[in-house]
């Protein structure tokens, strides 16, 4: 059975799909945001730490999808890590509930500089449908109420393809 599977894999090739083209404008805008130190130190790979700031778990489903063999993240130099201390990027989902503000700040502080924060989904971007709730951090809306945001990927939830494009744009901008 194993041999049959090996044969099929050799015949059909990997399940990963070819990468889509990136938007030049988005990459240029991001490159302008980055400071020189980050560019020389991070190189062409990014370690990503996911942080849930109170999402409905829809965004997590799409991060899991992005993690599947269909998208094969690691070929782009992108990988998920288990500790904020190993991370270059915090990928934050959720509208930032008041009950999670302290946890997000701890995670952000534990991430070494230079670091980027990506707000994933409408909630993290501006509070989404939960904007104005007593249980959500007020102020700038979304996670920007607690941490500086470098890249916003809106959507409810964003598709894995949108997420991948955003992260690759970050990578490209970083390499310039």
């Amino acid at each position: 059975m194993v041999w049959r599977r090996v044969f099929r894999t050799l015949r059909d090739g990997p399940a990963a799909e070819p990468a889509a083209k990136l938007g030049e404008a988005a990459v240029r805008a991001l490159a302008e945001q980055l400071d020189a130190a980050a560019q020389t130190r991070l190189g062409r790979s990014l370690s990503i730490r996911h942080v849930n700031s109170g999402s409905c778990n829809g965004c997590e489903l799409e991060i899991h999808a992005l993690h599947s063999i269909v998208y094969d993240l690691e070929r782009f130099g992108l990988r998920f890590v288990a500790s904020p201390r190993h991370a270059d990027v915090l990928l934050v989902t959720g509208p930032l509930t008041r009950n999670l503000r302290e946890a997000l700040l701890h995670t952000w502080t534990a991430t070494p500089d230079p670091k980027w924060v990506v707000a994933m989904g409408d909630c993290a971007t501006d509070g989404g449908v939960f904007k104005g709730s007593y249980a959500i951090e007020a102020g700038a809306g979304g996670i920007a109420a607690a941490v500086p945001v470098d890249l916003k990927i809106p959507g409810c939830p964003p598709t894995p393809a949108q997420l991948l494009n955003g992260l690759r744009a970050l990578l490209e901008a970083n390499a310039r």
Partner: protein
Amino acid sequence: MSTATAIIRAGAAIPCRPWTRHVLARADWTAMTQALAGQPALALVALWADPSEAHALFLDEADGAVLVASTAIVEGGYPALSPHRPGAAWYERMIRDLWGHAALGGTDDRAWLDHGRWPHSHPLAARPGPMGPAPEPPEFLPVEGEDLHQIPLGPIYAGITEPGHFRLTCQGETVVRLEVRLGYAHKGTLALMRGKTPRTAARFAARLSGDSTVAHAIAFARATEAALGVDAPPRAATLRAVMAEIERIANHLGDVGAICNAAGFAFAPARFGWHREAMRRAAAAAFGHRLMMDAVVPGGVVADLAPGGPDAIAAALATLERELPELVRVYDNHASLIDRMVGTGILAADLAQRFAAGGYVGRASGRAFDARRLPGYPPYGSLEVAVPVLQGGDVDARLRIRLAEIAESIRLLRVLLDTLPAGTLTVSLPMGSGEGIGCAEGFRGDIWHWLRLDNGQIANAFLRDPSWAQWPLLEAAVEGSIVADVPLCEKSFNCSCSGVDL
């Protein structure tokens, strides 16, 4: 002494569709809570409140009857159910934090959702209180014994998960107690829904737990339709079921992969993840959204199947059906994998019964309840849904229930698509008042929504996710396991944080 059922039925009837709500005087409610001890077949499904009353939803496992009981809040409290229904304890803590009503004689009065960080306490009460003191450090149940140590996990985990805190107390490698502390994902959903039209409020119901967005949207839509006395058109009901079964298959595929991954078997998440992605893409092709969020609305569905939709779904099902037997064989033939699954995290059948656990958690421990069969709702009536039941109660049983349900959902989807009735997609909702209850079977289990409409706006609502029954059972199932098996147990339960954090 009369039975709890008789006491509830004797209470003053308040119109609520499809199940009448009975308001009990304080003395009758107290008698009812005591009678529960002698009527174990009356399962507590949900317990919630509004500013002036506490409400309990029961299911009689003997005859499938649904009973709704209420009692007025007197001097800030109501007699607790938790002494006779242990599953009530979490609800009572939630009611205290959100409405400020005390459960008199309850087994646990520690804070739950309120971590002392909201601008005011009791946010759903008629008059919210001042900001509560921060419950830091949180109080955990006492554990006694020699050489115990604690492992705190979360709310930020080393993985892509939801935020909850696991407090493991261990003796060497053995877990003596797991206590879960939630509330981190509390978004104030119930408060946001108040004063909104059902159409607007449905967006919150669809985001209570994103993985069950279709099932929650169906329960909410059915509650609204019941309150207003209308029925969704047959075509809409069938399309809802198509979406619900796609959601069930996709989530089960993800879960099976995640459980095997927790045992370090990377092949399973790769293949099951591939099929899940195919299901999500079929959903996008058919309904315009990968998770089908906001596709189900009160009154019907927002859009018809896209032209290429049925073919996309059929193609995804065919590919899945072709490879599934081989994937099951791979699972069966890996002794080192099976060794981690069988006998791990056993949930005793009587516990599953006592907490009225639904979904794969209940079915793997002998409780066959499925809301599609009983109380049942269109279009499932004529479909004769097969519900797999196992007795093992371990991680392996919960995984095999999912595999069996995937096969059954494939069958259901084909029948549903073949027999799709013609007709309209929505029925217009009158601007009315009333109370309604809706239920739906999500991939985790039975979902129940209650709401009260006042001139076309939500006056009060409660959304009950199946995880309410399953979190406490996870705590029980982990007891006595080794630390390395905790992720296996956790993935095999896959409880939702957001769903119970509200």
